[in-house]
């Protein structure tokens, strides 16, 4: 049975006012003139105890909307002396830095109402607020346990911990409201984890708590609503469409965007940034990656010595809590001119009066672009101002189309992971700690979550069996985390360490470490440390790759643990752009819009004037940028042709090896699937390994000899999934994903017996782990989860199939062209793509073949039992 979804309408100002207790009403109108649109949607529904999803742009007073109805209820109780010692409402937010927001939206209102009551001689019981995050001290926790807070503010992870704590569970037994803030940031495994925590919370609460979700602009709203309330409950959606004018434009440091790493280009970039910063009061720059964040700060200082000292700050997730607090505080005080952030300042903490947001490189989706730009003019009614800075020509096209979609309010759709078995393992472990469950009741609670509504009993039992240590055979006792009585069909806690193990290893966000870059040669500088790179960046590097760090070029040789070894003083051109990192994939919708745009341009390409004018209007961009886009497209047209949504270019290049460039503009998730299918087909044809490069705009496969017609004919709608299954076990991507899944399912403990495990140590084992788990069973639940994650979260198989269908129906044509050199479109694919390798040739045969080659080198005979 599935619950009902309805859409809310706003009520009139006075209809909200009459719901409020006189004290609350007086306080509200002493602070605000009237209710915001969001409040007119939300407050009555929350007052009426309806589950609600509020979706409103940033700065839409969402948090206070949720709190207002609840404060009102509590003040009413407090005035009647009916306030009990229990937690009435839980507020959970994925943000770690919560305190200021809570002060503004919760503590200050409560304080002011208290003072008002005092002035009027009305006796109010005290309404207590408790904050618990990963940073809360033991002392603070103990205090909270003694004096129960009425409003409990926490993070998803801390919430999962406290519901397994007996004392807190009692305080939560009659919970009435759950507020989930920043829902848009939870369409991932962290959200999946929270969805189960909410079900656990609802399960032991004697009354069904009302669920209130607060989200920035997001789509599809109905799926997000289901995610919030689960599949069986009703929910009302308040889609608040604030007409906020957004002032956006795209800029570029230079007309010639071919060489974005060139010094001249870099210099202009910093000049442009400086100009923008200088003409605004406070600027926030988003860079997508942590590396780039540090880089911008470093170079701004280099280009403008002293100008920004003390006026600039970095803010990213790997900085310490204190450092981030400090930066936020200085922002609010207006002490900083500019803050550079990777993604950490995207979410809703109030950061004061930002008047310009710069997006360095495409933010890859409309929702994210809106969210970031919304950070400027966070206050209601202020006009957010944002500037995209495009750093290469694909980036320029992408930013331009994103801007167009923002104007047209085309929001890209998110998808939520379903039936994730690693998160499930962690939660079953937590549930087993709380009490003894019957198998059927535990499964029933789990299935109430939208993310597990379709979980099969077999999958559930396979996870239970993993946790019970069944797979470990004679060592069962060592590996078992829960107790499972298969006769009585009951699940419970096992071992004295269970609770502490759960508390110290909870969470779903894989730890990403910084890799130290160490010089291996020349000998004079051996051992010198030259800086750090992201783990994701390291994964992109192959031996021999040249990259830029701190302005100098290094050649990568190998990595060990948390160190990458390089050769300094190399003169070769970089082979990997330093901007590159594990970036968010471009949304499918935006990618398709770019493909359509390319078609419009290709139809007009012969007439430069007309075409430039078209681009200028279509993207609402500056004439010089329209011209740059035209030049890029024209170059491609002259070389081979412009690939677009109806005709896809497959460029065949022969050099030291053969390349096939597929210009499939569908975003990385679709290309991740297509590339591996075509790559695997090619690998199978000749039983040789195939290299892959994948990005949002297409992919390439490379190998010794490629027959494009034959390869293309091997991939069909019918066999795509089969090909992918075959391909997956032969690539690196599964190994990387498996490590994270193993950590989430508590197979690898971050913290055990008082020792914390470094990311590096986990990394060393990842290859080994995968091969060991395959020995247990190819169907081991956590291995299946790693495959599911790749298939469903990393790739977009359904859409890849829909594309193949169009190809089969001839709605889309794949046109093979022989080219002598890599085309302009191909060039960006070659230099800016995620690499993978389909290794179909096994180790034994590979070594034999290489030995035969080596024999030619040393011209000696193959030796068995060699005599020295």
């Amino acid at each position: 049975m599935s619950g009902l979804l309805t859409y809310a309408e706003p009520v009139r100002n006075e209809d909200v006012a009459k719901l409020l207790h006189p004290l609350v009403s007086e306080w509200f109108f002493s602070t605000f003139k009237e209710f915001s649109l969001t409040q007119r949607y939300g407050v009555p529904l929350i007052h009426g105890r309806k589950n609600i999803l509020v979706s409103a742009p940033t700065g839409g007073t969402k948090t206070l909307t949720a709190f207002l109805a609840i404060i009102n209820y509590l003040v009413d109780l407090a005035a009647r002396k009916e306030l009990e010692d229990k937690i009435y409402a839980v507020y959970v937010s994925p943000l770690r830095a919560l305190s200021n927001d809570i002060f503004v939206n919760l503590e200050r209102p409560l304080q002011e109402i208290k003072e008002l009551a005092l002035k009027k001689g009305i006796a109010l019981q005290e309404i207590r607020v408790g904050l618990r995050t990963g940073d809360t001290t033991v002392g603070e926790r103990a205090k909270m346990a003694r004096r129960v807070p009425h409003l409990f503010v926490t993070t998803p992870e801390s919430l999962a911990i406290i519901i397994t704590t007996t004392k807190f569970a009692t305080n939560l037994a009659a919970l009435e409201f759950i507020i989930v803030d920043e829902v848009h940031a939870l369409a991932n495994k962290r959200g999946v984890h929270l969805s189960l925590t909410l079900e656990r919370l609802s399960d032991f609460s004697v009354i069904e708590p009302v669920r209130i979700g607060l989200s920035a602009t997001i789509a599809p709203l109905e799926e997000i609503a289901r995610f919030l309330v689960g599949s069986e409950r009703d929910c009302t959606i308040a889609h608040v469409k604030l007409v906020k004018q957004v002032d956006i434009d795209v800029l570029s440091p230079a007309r010639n965007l071919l060489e974005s790493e060139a010094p001249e280009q870099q210099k202009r970039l910093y000049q442009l940034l400086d100009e923008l910063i200088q003409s605004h009061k406070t600027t926030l720059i988003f860079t997508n990656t942590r590396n780039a964040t540090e880089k911008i700060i470093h170079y701004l200082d280099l280009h403008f010595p002293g100008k920004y000292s003390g006026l600039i700050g970095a803010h990213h997730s790997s900085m310490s809590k204190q450092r981030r607090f400090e930066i936020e505080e200085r922002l609010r005080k207006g002490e900083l001119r500019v803050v550079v952030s990777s993604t950490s300042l995207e979410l809703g903490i109030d950061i004061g009066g930002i008047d310009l947001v710069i997006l360095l490189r495409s933010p890859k989706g409309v929702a994210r672009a809106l969210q970031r730009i919304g950070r400027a003019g966070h206050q209601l009614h202020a006009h957010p101002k944002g500037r995209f800075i495009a750093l290469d020509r694909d980036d320029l096209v992408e930013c331009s189309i994103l801007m167009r979609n923002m104007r047209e309010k085309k929001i890209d759709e998110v998808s939520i992971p379903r039936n994730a078995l690693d998160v499930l393992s962690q939660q079953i472990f937590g549930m087993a700690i709380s009490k003894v469950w019957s198998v059927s009741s535990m499964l029933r609670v789990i299935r109430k979550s939208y993310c597990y509504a379709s979980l099969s009993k077999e999958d559930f039992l396979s996870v239970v069996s993993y946790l019970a240590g069944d797979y470990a055979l004679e060592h069962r006792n060592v590996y078992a985390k829960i107790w499972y009585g298969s006769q009585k069909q009951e699940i419970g806690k096992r071992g004295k360490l269970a609770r502490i193990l759960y508390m110290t290893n909870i969470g779903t966000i894989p730890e990403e470490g910084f890799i130290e870059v160490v010089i291996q040669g020349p000998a004079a500088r051996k051992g010198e440390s030259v800086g750090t790179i992201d783990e994701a960046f390291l994964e992109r590097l192959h031996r021999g790759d040249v990259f830029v760090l701190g302005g100098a070029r290094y050649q990568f040789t190998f990595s060990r643990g948390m160190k990458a070894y390089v050769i300094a003083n190399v003169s070769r051109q970089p082979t990997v752009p330093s901007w590159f990192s594990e970036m968010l994939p471009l949304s499918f919708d935006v990618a398709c819009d770019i493909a359509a745009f390319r078609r419009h341009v290709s139809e007009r390409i012969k007439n430069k004037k007309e075409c430039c004018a078209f681009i200028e209007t279509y993207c609402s961009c500056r004439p010089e940028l329209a011209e740059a886009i035209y030049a890029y497209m024209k170059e491609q047209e002259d070389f081979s042709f412009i690939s677009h949504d109806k005709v896809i270019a497959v460029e065949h290049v022969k050099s030291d090896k053969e390349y096939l460039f597929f210009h499939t503009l569908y975003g990385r998730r679709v290309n991740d699937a297509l590339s591996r299918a075509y790559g695997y087909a090619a690998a199978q044809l000749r039983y040789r390994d195939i290299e892959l490069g994948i990005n949002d705009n297409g992919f390439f496969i490379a190998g010794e000899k490629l027959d494009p017609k034959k390869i293309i004919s091997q991939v069909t709608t019918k066999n795509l999934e089969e090909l992918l299954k075959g391909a997956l076990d032969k690539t690196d991507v599964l190994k990387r994903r498996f490590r994270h899944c193993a950590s989430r399912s508590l197979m690898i403990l971050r913290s055990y017996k008082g020792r914390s495990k470094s990311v590096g140590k986990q990394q060393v084992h990842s290859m080994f782990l995968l091969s060991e788990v395959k020995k247990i069973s190819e169907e081991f639940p956590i291995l299946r989860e790693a495959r599911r994650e790749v298939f469903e979260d990393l790739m977009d198989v359904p859409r890849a199939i829909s594309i193949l269908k169009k190809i089969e129906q001839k709605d889309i044509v794949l046109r093979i062209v022989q080219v002598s050199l890599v085309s302009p479109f191909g060039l960006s694919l070659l230099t800016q793509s995620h690499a993978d390798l389909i290794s179909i040739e096994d180790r034994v045969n590979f070594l034999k073949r290489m030995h035969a080659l080596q024999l030619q080198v040393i011209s000696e005979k193959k030796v068995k039992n060699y005599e020295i």
Partner: protein
Amino acid sequence: MKYSFLGKSLIVERAGKRTFVVGDLHLGYDEGLRSSGVFIVSNLFEETKKELTSLLEKAGQVDEIILLGDLKHIFGQILTSEWKEIFAIIELLRMYCSKIIFIKGNHDVIMEPIAKRYGVLLYDYYLLGNCAFLHGDRDFPEIYDAKITCWVVGHAHPAISIQEGVKNEKYKCFLVVLYKRKKVIVLPSFFPGSQGIDIKLQDLGLIWPLDVKRGRVFVVNDTQEVLDFGALETILGP
């Protein structure tokens, strides 16, 4: 004296006597993983036993067995599983030969009680004809004696990555290199959990500054076949 490779092991023949030599075993690795919080079922010990058995079967009659040190994985203490595993290995070796020699490695700090209990010979180094067997982390004046022409050592875990394009696979290997007019044979680790360290890139970590580039590489395929790849400096790849 005659030296021949058999999978990851080395067979030394002298006057009709055959000596079977293997490198670092690192027993107790499985438990080491568990005690550091990695709860994945690994059974490297079973693999080690299986491979040893298979090689000993192929080797035929042997007169002594030398383990080149680092029998244990964990330093300083002896875990319960290590006792069990070491004992099981000794039992296994006994089925093929009664004379078993342990060379002390840097991981084997407290091996004496084990050796005593199971009647195994325990040495810092062992001389046989003109050959010296030692671990490789410590030096001894006796091995420089003029009549000693060959050193057989472990400790370094030599492996080599074979590369073609972006394909890159690592294999265990023997390394034979001349040093002070002695032939040094470095055995790969016997430990099945990892291939070892890449001799193209990393330092061997032996006590002597060997000229690795001039060394000759014998690569061990997963089928136990040993392939001569010639001098390290001739092997392709960066």
